[in-house]
């Protein structure tokens, strides 16, 4: 088995090449403990089995971002047999910057010179043979969407695996090479670093790379060796002003030298430039963005809704027909009841079309190059709110469904910003809550219902923004999330990449989020159908354990003006918000149609408004909790979200009553 790692800048077509190689034999997940996507798969070419891993897209291999650390740690520690660096031929200088850093790592490297067609059409001519010679690296020309060059790439990978270690041809300045040479001599004596590429290690020490300096500090036990290392580093520092910048300059100097001999550019105005004149225009740029956002939203929800409904109906019919199959009421209920296994699977499955449609659409827009434009347009506004430009997209998606919104945060590159966006997304009032609130608002406020609903949207947004600001300031303090971002040329998006992304994400949701949802449902199902005194099956919720819990918790919620039935409805609301109305109606013994007029007679409007605010803010649903767990990869953040939401909901409920008392 040949182990191949794909590296490359973002937007170079790396995922299309990954898809071409692995086809359907791929697996998508997260890097352990991170929110960064990990894609791996298997390929078979010319009889050879290959394991292919798609490293996060990065511009560099420093220790300043999680993606870069993941990519370089993988190459350093997992030691793939061959690293394929995918290079955008139309933008070769900056792409070669990553190439030379991979070469520093001393691994067997191949360049896939991708987008050759685009390069030619934009007036970039490359002397590939000469470039190959100067870099000392085999180059395969590819046009990934047309699968051009894939066989050749496979052949080169196999050849490379068999070949002897290649010679490092890139030479930096004498000052730098001298220091590298001196350091390598010492490092060869350190057995703790036997597995590392000495040249790379030496460069990192000279740069003063945080992660590596820490390893040097911890791993080298012999004091004299350590002192000699620091001595060389100090001498180098005395010669050059800023060591890190010096090394970067050297890399680009070498690249410029190579590029000047091998690449000829006669820049033409491209279609991409023309598109940006419209998309980023001072006047129509933002209206176009809003229109595209609307399309994204509509696509995600309209395409998925028929499937969602179909799945829901299908499982409802089956579970109704099977209601008494085993004859043991508890077991029947757990298998086929309202909160049973079968309905649970139906519920999980019903989210899958939504997630697939979402990822399909997001992947197309990302691939097209528009998501970074959206970030460019919205950054200033969103930053004032403590958020980043791209956060607007998951926020808007959250109005449809928080699960979609939470998964949509994947387009945010910085992990801190992504976590903020995930934990605040539930405050976006989703369509399920809208349905429940619309019934209550219509019953109480009649023609004013629209204004009441709007006020709830506003409350949600204001809270999300405030919490983002607080998290940014106090939890992720001092961590700048830079906006140093490429606006890549627009390209025709790959339907295949979008489809495989949709499929992978949909099935990941089913496997990972599914267990959390099913567990939550079953717990509630058991509690709702177990008689509190006899512990036997009951179909009367009022005698169930849930009812007892609701009554026990009632004193806590009494200040909000609820009776115990509303407490129980809120407990059921953990499953999904659309259940709240049905559960309340059932507990009061009225039908859902009678519910509106019934509740209007029994509750004060201020109490009901406070109730809606509570329901808006406290945990949206079990599926969103599972999504948060899935995307943050952490129970800590998941529990944090639940806790802050429940307590915030309670405080706001009290606040509404207090203010309402004056009106």
């Amino acid at each position, binding site marked *: 088995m040949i182990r191949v790692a794909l590296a490359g800048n973002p937007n170079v077509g790396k995922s299309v090449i990954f898809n071409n190689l692995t086809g359907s034999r791929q697996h998508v997940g997260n890097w352990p403990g991170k929110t960064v996507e990990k894609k791996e798969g298997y390929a078979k070419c010319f009889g050879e089995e290959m394991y292919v891993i798609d490293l996060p897209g990065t511009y560099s291999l*420093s220790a300043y971002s999680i993606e870069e650390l993941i990519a370089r740690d993988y190459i350093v520690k997992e030691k793939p047999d061959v690293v394929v660096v995918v290079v955008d031929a*139309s933008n070769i*200088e900056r792409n070669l910057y990553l190439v030379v850093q991979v070469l520093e790592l001393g691994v067997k490297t191949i360049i896939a010179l991708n987008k050759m067609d685009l390069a030619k059409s934009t007036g970039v001519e490359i002397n590939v043979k000469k470039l190959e010679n100067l870099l000392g690296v085999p180059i395969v020309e590819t046009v990934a969407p047309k699968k051009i060059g894939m066989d050749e790439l496979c052949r080169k990978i196999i050849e490379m695996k068999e070949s002897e270690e290649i010679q490092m041809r890139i030479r930096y300045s004498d000052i730098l090479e001298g220091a590298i040479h001196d350091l390598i001599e010492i490092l060869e004596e350190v057995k703790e670093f036997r597995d590392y590429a000495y040249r790379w290690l030496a460069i990192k020490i000279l740069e003063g790379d945080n992660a590596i300096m820490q390893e040097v500090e911890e791993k080298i036990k012999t004091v004299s060796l350590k002192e000699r290392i620091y001595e060389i580093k100090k001498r180098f520092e005395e010669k050059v002003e800023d060591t*890190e910048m010096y090394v*970067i300059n050297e890399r680009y100097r070498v690249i410029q030298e190579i590029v000047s001999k091998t690449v000829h550019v006669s820049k033409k105005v491209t279609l991409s430039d023309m598109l940006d004149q419209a998309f980023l225009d001072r006047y129509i*740029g933002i209206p176009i963005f809003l229109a595209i956002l609307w399309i994204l939203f509509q696509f995600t929800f309209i395409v998925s809704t028929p499937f969602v409904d179909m799945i829901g109906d299908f499982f409802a019919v089956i579970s109704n027909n099977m209601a008494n199959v085993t004859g043991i009421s508890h077991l029947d209920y757990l298998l086929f009841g309202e909160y049973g296994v079968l309905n649970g699977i139906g519920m999980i499955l019903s989210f899958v079309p939504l997630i697939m449609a979402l990822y399909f659409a997001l992947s197309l827009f990302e691939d097209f190059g528009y998501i*970074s434009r959206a970030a460019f347009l919205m950054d200033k506004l969103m930053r004032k709110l403590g958020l980043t430009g791209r956060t607007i997209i998951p926020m808007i998606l959250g109005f449809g469904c928080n699960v979609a919104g939470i998964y949509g945060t994947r387009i945010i590159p910085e992990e801190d910003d992504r976590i903020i966006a995930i934990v605040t997304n539930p405050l976006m009032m989703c369509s399920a809550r809208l349905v429940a609130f619309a019934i209550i608002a219509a019953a109480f406020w009649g023609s004013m219902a629209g204004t009441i609903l709007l006020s709830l949207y506003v409350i949600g947004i204001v809270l999300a923004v405030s919490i983002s600001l607080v998290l940014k300031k106090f939890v992720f303090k001092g961590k700048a999330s830079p906006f*140093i971002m490429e606006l890549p040329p627009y390209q025709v998006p790959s339907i295949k990449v979008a489809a495989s992304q949709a499929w992978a994400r949909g099935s990941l949701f089913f496997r990972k989020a599914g267990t959390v949802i099913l567990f939550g449902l079953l717990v509630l199902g058991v509690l709702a159908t177990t008689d509190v005194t006899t512990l036997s099956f009951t179909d009367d919720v009022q005698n169930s354990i849930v009812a007892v819990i609701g009554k026990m918790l009632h004193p806590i919620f009494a200040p909000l003006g609820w009776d115990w039935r509303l407490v129980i409805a809120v407990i059921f609301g953990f499953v999904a918000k659309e259940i709240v109305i049905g559960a309340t109606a059932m507990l009061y013994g009225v039908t859902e149609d009678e519910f509106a007029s019934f509740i209007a007679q029994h509750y004060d409007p201020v109490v009901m408004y406070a109730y809606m605010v509570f329901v808006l803010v406290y945990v949206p649903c079990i599926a969103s909790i599972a999504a948060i767990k899935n995307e943050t990869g952490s129970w800590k953040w998941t529990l944090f979200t639940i806790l802050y939401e429940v307590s915030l909901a309670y405080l706001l409920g009290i606040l509404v009553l207090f203010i309402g008392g004056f009106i």
Partner: protein
Amino acid sequence: MNVKLSSLNPGDKAVVVRINGKGAIARRIADMGLIPGTEIKVVRKAPLGDPIEFEVRGYYLSLRKNEADIVLVKVKEYDSL
């Protein structure tokens, strides 16, 4: 005369002189190819005035105003308009 990159207007061309400061942001800006001697052109500002789009090394890069503040440049030509 050396000025901040952020002070230029769309259409202006300049050459990078130095990046002021250390740390992640300075490093990342340099990683993207803005090193002394590099030619850079201001393409446009975002509709709300920030961030700013630049053309450098044959590709388009966006920087926030406060990030462009730390890049010191020497103006080559101001846009004729």
